[in-house]
């Protein structure tokens, strides 16, 4: 408790060093949530295995190593204050932004439709189809497992999010008063809406958080960057409370609280094709009775820390090959490409390996179920290099959040560049840093950045062609 309080105090102090610290605050709040809930509850697997208290006591120290190195990383970046680089600034035009958005939106829609064989009834059956007893044919876990193995499953979120980011930048920058803009925005919105609906239908909280995050951070952008406007206001200044900021903070608190309740509602209601919604309050009261938090999010992510600590002493076969840091560079490669290059099956990431090892340990290797947990960076650091690994990943996360905050504060709608859109897409993952694992984060950044290269290439070709034809016209004149 003392270490957590110390972390919160230091975190507030560091946030005051930054002109606008919303990204840092979200990341830090996420870390505090997982840290504070860590000793409160533990996951019971198959009523056979549960973490012992001795491990929990050790885990608390691991959290503090991670937390303080994270703060150190952010602090170093605020002191260095690296300059922002503008890459492909010529992107900053209405045509280019709308083109990129519509292009990515169409690609996303194609990938989404291809995944479900261009068949809406098939999609609905896949999600809601029930047997004669009214029980959904496929549970959420089974559905995800099938999708991860399906040959025609294509990742559509990596197109959807950049499409939304670019659309919002275009709307913010050029407005909707112009009929052309309004029409184009409406079309792009229509193209993207099936994917957004699919997130709601499937109760895909991760994707909804990513979407909400991108919308929030993009809509906050103004013509001038935070650094340019250079306005800094604090809740307490010269020992006086700033009422305007206080009201603003209270508003934000209630918005976050309602969002949190909404996510809990999704988590509890999405089972059995949303047929559990009538039992939400019953389930909620049951969880309160058993002294459990209303969401399993924290206990399952924190379980990965417990398992990482216990792993070396358990009588189970360890996964020989997984995406540890030394191999991580190849993680974003598609399964078939990886197999083609390395002539072997693509290994699982650390989170999947923990799920597999837990399943084998508790249910036996012959059991067919698939267990999966959000991977805590602390578990990842421990599996890679024990205490040093945790300090290292904490520092890297701190550097990354510090850099994102630093660059975000320098983004202005007037001078938007390709790198800025990359940063905005990356911000989608900020609230999820404590449950995504570095391989997952790297994959997200790499994929969302990579898919933007194709429309950028087309834009460059068009621009070159226009330039050449203009030059020819001038020469002819």
């Amino acid at each position: 408790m003392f270490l957590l309080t110390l972390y919160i105090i230091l975190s507030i102090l560091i946030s005051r060093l930054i002109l606008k610290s919303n990204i840092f605050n979200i990341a830090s709040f996420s870390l505090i949530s997982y840290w504070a809930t860590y000793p409160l509850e533990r996951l019971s697997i198959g009523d056979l295995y549960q973490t012992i208290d001795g491990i929990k006591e050790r885990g608390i120290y691991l959290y503090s190593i991670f937390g303080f190195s994270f703060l150190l990383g952010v602090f170093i970046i605020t002191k260095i204050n690296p300059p922002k680089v503008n890459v492909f600034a010529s992107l900053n035009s209405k045509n280019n932004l709308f083109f990129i958005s519509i292009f990515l939106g169409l690609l996303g829609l194609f990938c989404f439709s291809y995944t479900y064989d261009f068949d809406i009834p098939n999609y609905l059956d896949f999600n809601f189809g029930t047997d004669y007893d009214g029980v959904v044919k496929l549970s959420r876990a089974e559905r995800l497992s099938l999708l991860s193995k399906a040959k025609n499953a294509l990742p559509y979120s990596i197109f959807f999010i950049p499409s939304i980011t670019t659309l919002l930048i275009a709307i913010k920058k050029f407005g909707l008063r112009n009929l052309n803009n309004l029409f184009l925005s409406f079309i792009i919105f229509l193209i993207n809406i099936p994917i957004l609906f699919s997130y709601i239908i499937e109760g895909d909280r991760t994707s909804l958080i990513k979407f909400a995050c991108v919308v929030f951070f993009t809509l906050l952008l103004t013509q001038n960057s935070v650094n340019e406007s250079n306005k800094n206001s604090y809740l307490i200044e010269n020992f006086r409370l700033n009422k305007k900021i206080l009201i603003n903070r209270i508003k934000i608190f209630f918005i976050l609280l309602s969002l949190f309740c909404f996510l809990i509602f999704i988590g509890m209601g999405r089972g059995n094709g949303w047929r559990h919604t009538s039992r939400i309050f019953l389930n909620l009261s049951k969880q309160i009775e058993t002294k459990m938090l209303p969401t399993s999010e924290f206990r399952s992510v924190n379980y990965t820390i417990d398992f990482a600590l216990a792993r070396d002493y358990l009588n189970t076969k360890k996964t020989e090959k997984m995406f540890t840091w030394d191999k991580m560079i190849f993680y974003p490669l598609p399964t078939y490409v990886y197999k083609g290059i390395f002539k072997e099956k693509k290994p699982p990431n650390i989170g999947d390996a923990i799920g597999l090892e837990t399943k084998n340990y508790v249910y036996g290797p012959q059991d067919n179920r698939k267990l999966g947990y959000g991977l805590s960076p602390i578990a990842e650091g421990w599996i890679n290099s024990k205490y040093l690994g945790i300090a290292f990943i904490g520092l890297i996360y701190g550097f990354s959040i510090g850099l994102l905050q630093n660059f975000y504060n320098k983004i202005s709608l007037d001078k938007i560049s390709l790198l800025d859109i990359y940063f905005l897409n990356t911000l989608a993952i900020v609230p999820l840093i404590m449950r995504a694992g570095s391989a997952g984060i790297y994959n997200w950044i790499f994929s969302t950045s990579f898919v933007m290269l194709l429309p950028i290439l087309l834009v460059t070709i068009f621009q070159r062609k226009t330039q050449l034809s203009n030059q020819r016209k001038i020469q002819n004149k």
Partner: protein
Amino acid sequence: MRKKNYLLFLILFIYTIITSNTFARNKVFQDKFTLDNELKLDEKELITKKNTKEWIKVFNTLINYYERKIIIKKDYLKLIKRFPSNKNINSTEIIKDIKKDSEILYGHGGLVYNVNALNNLYKFLNSDENFDIYIITYYFKILNSENSDTETYKWFSLCSINPNHDKEMISIRKNLIEVFYSLNNEGYQFYENSIRDNKNIGLSESKLDKIACNEFKKQKKI
């Protein structure tokens, strides 16, 4: 004298036959207690290769569960040593649990014993069609028991209709009766009010088997 002895022997012989006939007709058990006149058949199921395989599967799942449980408990002991804490579970309790689970798994009439017996039966069954062992369940009352008005007892046995199998049935019954008792949670609620739980009644299991099987054979013929 010889004739007298012969006559006496004949009278004794006829008397034995008459009493055994009476016994068969009235179905009254000449033991410490007297059975109800009516045995009521509750369930019957033909043992086939298919259901034997299913039972083996049930036992294997249980064996797997207990094996995992023992491994996990043993690992707890290692973890407690490596990550000491006052709040940790007591190791003596864990050791007790391990002993208990080992007994369920490897003890006499334990899961491993049962699955081995079923595996032997599985090998013994040639085909589903020409083998005819039934598991049968009967309800009956014991007339001169203290609670005879209220308590109905349940009995189950392994019977064959084919008289040629009678000899084999003795050994099969001996080996498998425990197995089917263990399956109680997975298929048969034999323990419910079973006379096995009321050993003090003093009924002989082999005699009850005989009565139940004879009754079953008769019903089958009808």
